[in-house]
Each structure stands twice: as C-alpha cells, then as structure tokens.
C-alpha cells in the first residue's frame, strides 16, 4: 500500500507547492494518448475478465430467472415454453430439503476439516522454518507433492485404498484386529473425503504459510535469541503472530474450497452408493444441469452457493480482520 501511495502524495505536494503552473502541466501530460494508455494496457485483462468471468456470472443469474414449462403430454413442437419466473427457481431450491442437507454436510465438513488441515500446515511450516531442521528442501518438496496430483486422480487413488477387498489399509487393519473397517459407509464416507482433501491441500497451505515465514526479517529472531528465547518460544511468540495473515488467507481459500466440494465425492460415487446425487451443493447443481437437464434450477443453486460462499468468506475475514491487519502493520 505505502509504495503505491508515495508518488501520489508527492504529486499532491508538488501541485500544492507549484500552484497553477504545475497543475496545468500535469493536465497536459495526461491529455491525449497518454490518458488512454493505461486503459489500453488494461484492455487485454478487462476483455478476458469480462468474457470469462463477468459474462458467465451474468448469464448464470439471467438463466436462474427462467423456467421451462411443459403443457399436456409435453409432446410436439409447441408444448414447451421457457418463461420468466423471477425468483421462482430460488424459492424452489430454498424449499428443497436435499439442498440444505448438502449444505449442512459441507459446513460440518468445513468445521472439522479446515482447522485440522490448517493446524497441520502451520506446524509443518514452522518445523520447516526452524533453524535446526535438516533436509529442508526434501521435506518441503515432499509435503507439497500431493498438491501436484490432480484432484480427480487423487480421489481415484484413494478410492482404491478405501475399497474393501482391494485396499491394503483395510486388510492390514483387519489383520491387526480392528475388524473390517468400512471407509465408504454412510457415516464414514464424508470423513474419508476429508482425509483426501487434507492429504491434498495441507502441503499447499503449508507453502503459503512458509512463504509468510520467509518474509519475516531475521533480525527479529536474532533479537529474540539474544534475549534468550528458545526455538519453541520464537515459533509461538514471534513467528505465529506474524504469519497470522497468511493463515487467514489459507482459511478463506479453504472455506471457499469446502463449499465448492465436487470432484472427490463425484469420483467416489463410482465405488460407493453412499454418496447421493445431492451430497454437496455443487453436486446437486451438476445433477440438475447435466443429469436432469434443468439448467435454470442449476443456475439458481450456483448463484445461491456463490452468495453463501461470499458471505461466509467475507464474514470470516470481518471476524478476524482487526487482529489480522493489526499484525500486518507490525
């Protein structure tokens, strides 16, 4: 922020000092081609942003306001009309029991999985950053490696590890006397998915936090050591507060990711019957759009989900903002 502010402030003071002359000079400088230049530079971004971001969102909102209505048997060319229904699709989604059970499921998932994953990521980042750690590069790479495996592939890999009869984990646990553990049962499957997500994204979040740690000036640690602080004390009292904003960032990403849970449950549906077609809100939207051929209701689900994600992630930011930003200013 400060680096951007500087030239502006300089300009202001210059115009204040130099008076009318400087002002007119500045106006001349910005007139003609040079005033357009910034926009020209922005144009490629703005065009792509509009085409691939704003337009689809606008189209989804537009779609969500219509409904295809059939009359009679629904046969013949004139039996189907698409008409404007206002918020009709939204009310039908909001009165749909399966939407809320899916939403409740991902929220429960987020409450349990996100803190575990972020705690793990923070501990791993602190361990990597600790002065006494050896083979740092090796560990950094191997923690991050799961993120390099595409989500769908990871889910397929794990599905083999969960399948009774194929899974070495299941058979090892059985021979160790734990009985046959069903990772894909009606109650356990959600946590099996949580395990996949944790495996996949801990390293990624660790890297963000680790990058935050790298940005802390070494002088702070030196000062602490001179004052006699132990390695653990440095981690808890200096590093942890300073990387709080990084943790907030990873938390927001994780909340968004959790609400959009889709590919892992979709892949696991092939090996278990315990993941319904509306297991997560995104899966419900997918089912509506691509199985039931009802893009309008799917658009409504997507818009509601986007709003919910927006509210939750910004709500979370608001909640931790004061603390996070006060630490940044330090």
């Amino acid at each position: 922020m400060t680096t951007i502010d500087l030239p502006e402030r300089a300009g202001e003071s210059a115009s204040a000092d130099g008076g009318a002359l400087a002002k007119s000079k500045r106006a001349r400088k910005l007139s003609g081609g040079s005033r357009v230049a910034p926009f020209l530079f922005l144009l490629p971004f703005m065009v792509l942003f509009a085409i691939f971001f704003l337009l689809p969102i606008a189209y989804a909102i537009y779609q969500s306001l219509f409904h295809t209505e059939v009359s009679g048997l629904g046969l013949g060319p004139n039996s189907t009309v698409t008409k404007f229904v206002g918020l009709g699709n939204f009310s039908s989604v909001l009165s749909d029991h399966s939407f809320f059970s899916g939403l409740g499921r991902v929220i429960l998932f987020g409450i349990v999985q996100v803190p575990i994953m972020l705690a793990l990521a923070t501990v791993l980042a602190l361990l990597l950053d600790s002065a006494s750690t050896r083979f740092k590069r090796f560990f950094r790479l191997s923690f991050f490696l799961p993120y390099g495996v595409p989500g769908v592939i990871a889910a397929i890999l794990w599905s083999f590890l969960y399948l009774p009869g194929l899974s070495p984990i299941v058979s090892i646990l059985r021979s160790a006397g734990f009985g046959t553990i069903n990772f894909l049962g009606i109650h356990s499957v959600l946590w099996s998915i949580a395990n996949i997500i944790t495996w996949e994204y801990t390293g990624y979040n660790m890297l963000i936090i680790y990058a935050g740690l790298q940005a802390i000036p070494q002088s702070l640690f030196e000062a602490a050591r001179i004052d006699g602080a132990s390695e653990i004390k440095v981690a808890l009292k200096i590093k942890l507060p300073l990387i709080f904003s990084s943790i907030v960032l990873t938390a927001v990403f994780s909340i968004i990711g959790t609400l959009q849970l889709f590919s892992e449950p979709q892949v696991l549906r092939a090996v278990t019957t315990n993941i319904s077609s509306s297991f997560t809100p995104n899966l419900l939207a997918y089912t509506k759009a691509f199985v039931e051929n009802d893009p309008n209701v799917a658009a409504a689900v997507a818009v509601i989900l986007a709003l919910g994600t927006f509210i939750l992630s910004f709500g979370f930011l608001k909640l931790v903002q004061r603390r996070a930003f006060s630490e940044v200013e330090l």
Partner: protein
Amino acid sequence: MGFQGSISGFFKRSSKGIALGLSVATLAAACGSTASSSTSTSPSTTAGVVHLTFWSWVPGLQASVNMWNSSHPNIQVKLDEVTSGAAGTYAKMFSALQAGNAPDLGQVEYPVIPNFEHVGGLVNLAQYGANTYKNDFVPWTWNQVSQGGGVYAIPQDTGPMGLFYRADLFTKYGLTVPTTWSEYLADAQKIHQQNPNAYIAAFPASDSAWFSALAWQAGAKWFNTQGNSWVVNLADPATMQVANLWQTMISQGLVKVEPDFSTGWYKDLSDGTILTWPTAVWGENTIATNAATTSGDWRVAPMPNWGNTTVDGNWGGSTTAVFKDTKYPAQAAQFAEWLNTNSGSINNMITTGGLYPASLAGQKLPAANSPVAFYGGQNIWQVFAQGSKAVNTSFLWGPVMSTTFTQLNDAFAKATTGSGTLADAVTSTQSATVSAMKQQGFSVTAG
C-alpha cells in the same frame, strides 16, 4: 432459404432414384463389402450433395458410415465420435438443441426419447416413410420410438435379459439353475449357508436402470398416456414384487450391496464372491473383459420368471434420432433407416460395436449366432434371441426419466443403509416423479 428449397425440390424429384440406389447398396453391403476409407467426405459443398453430421458413441460405427458414404455419393454423413449419452453427450445435445445448432442425427437411448420429444427436439420420421419399417424391428422397440402416429427414432440395438451364472460354482455348491425367482431366492440362501462370503448377486443400489429392467420383466408399467395426460405408476404390484424380493435378500445378507461396473464389483465377479448377474445381452462383453480369468466358468440361462409364463425384460439399447435443426430431414431419416436395417451395417455394429440388433433380420445374422469360447462354447445368443421375443411390449418410459432414476438411486442407497425398504424407495420415487412432472407443467395422474 432458396438453396434449401432447391435441395428439397431436387430430392423430391429424384427420390425414386435414391430408393433404387438404396436397395442396390443393401445388396452390395450384404455381400460383406468392407468399408473403403478412400470415400471420406469431400470438404467442398458441391451442388446436390447433402452433408449430414451424426453424433454417436458406438465403437467402430465409422465402418458402417463409410459403407453408406460410398454407396450414397449425394448424401455424405460425417460421424462425430462422442462420449456416451449419460457421460455428457445428452447434456451437450440438449444445449445444442436450445442453441439451434444440434447435429442432424444422434444416438439416443430409449428412456431418453420422451425427454427429447418434450423439448421438441426430434423430427417425426413418419412423414419420411419410417412406418414402413415397423415390422422389421422387435415389437417393443417400435412402441418406445413411436407416439401416437409419429415415429421419433429408428431402433438400433436392444438389451434382452438373461441370467449369467458361474456354472463351476453352481456345481460346487450343489445348485440347480433357477427358473423362477423363488428358486433364485432358495439358491441364494443355499450359497450363503455354505459360504458366508459368497453371494448370489450384487445389489447395485446406484443403478436403478438395472432395477427398471427387472421391473419391466415382472410386468411393470411405469408410464402410460391417457388422453392428454401422463399416468405414472411406479409402485405397481409388479414393481413391488421385485422390490420386496431384493429387500428380502438384502435383509438376510444374501446379496452384496455395491455399485456395479466398479472396481470392487469386477473383483467380486472374478473371484467367485458373486455367482450370478441377471443382466442384458451386452453383459457378455462386460464379464469377458473384466473377469477374464474366469473364462469357461460362466454360462447364460433364461431369466428366472415370476410365474409360469416366460416374460423377459430389457436393459439398454439405443436408437438413431433426427434432430429438429436439420436442414435435410428426409435424407437424415433415410440414413437412420439404412443404418439400422442394412445387413452390412448391422453386421459391423454386432462385430465391432458389440450391439445386439433391434432388427429382427439382424438377430439372425451369423455374427449374433455363434458359440462364444468365454462361455464354454455356449451359443449364448439363443438365450437372448428367445428373451428378445418374450420382452414385455407395453413398457413405456416417462418424460423425466433422468429425474426418476436419480431419485430412485438416492432412495435405494438410503434403503440399503438401513433407513426404510426398497418398497419405500419406490413409493417415494413415485411421488417425487409426479411432483417433478407437475412442477414442469405436465398434466399427470398418479396410477
């Protein structure tokens, strides 16, 4: 518009000539002519040559299309190989219809035809002489592609049902091949008494299409039309009979609840955990490919029956439909009819596509009548030819089958994890289907 008019004028004038050409081509292809790859579609649109696009996922269909293209220089078909309908092609077709740029022709499975009909996506082929082919096809297929006086697709293949069973394990456990479903239940109990880790079958809770085939066999009539209204009757006595049988087997632990076509299921088919699979003719290839180590162990018997009369069900199969956006409906209809009645084309679809034809003449081709080594040299096709004749002809699909199947899948999954029974699942799907149809504006009466 002028160009289009002149083309259709040209076609009308020369329709006799084309019909003649067709029969010659039929003869030539019947002699087993192989496809010549040299006759690829020319990029230039010469006057008088019609170009059609066809979306299909049948393996090796290009050979059939090549046969057509070489014998019909004025109607050139371009085949686009797409993923199977449920894997995304239907979604693509529906979007394309909405956008007005659907292909001329497409592969459509029977249960989806009413869905395409109600979005006005299909051309009525009756006006292009489709009704003359009525008696060339298995009767139930024609009932499913026609509605009132209209014909909305040409049947391509079918999936008559049979009982695939492990002959070696049946001997081991001292079982006789069941001819009725009560004998099937008795066999299931015998198997499980002798080996608690062996099951007569898997119950695929997430595959309600399979269940629909069993209900079809039992004489269910899920959908029907009465005047200008749909009659929905999912929970009829025949369906309930099927639901109760499988519920009994689930409750007693005689069947293994797991998704079909999954890794675990393939393993169970291979290692003798599952002894039978009541399925359609195309299951032949599924077992042979995914349980290759059991070669020689499987045999096929007619489906167990509910009473004394032999009735069969059908699972799968598809049709060739003409989409509304085509500029050349007559030519497209002609291709669809040729594709599914020409013996050379059908022979190709049997041998490379693994389809069991809907054409009665096609079912008599040698390719669909030879012993199969994997099944110990049994001529399994005879079972399915008999089954095909016995398929209940009155079964119809509803207009929102994808919703019905999704609901039934979810409800079955719930039932198999202890909340409710399969019968409850059927009942709840009945009401869910009726309310989904009402919400979309259909006029519905619950049966």
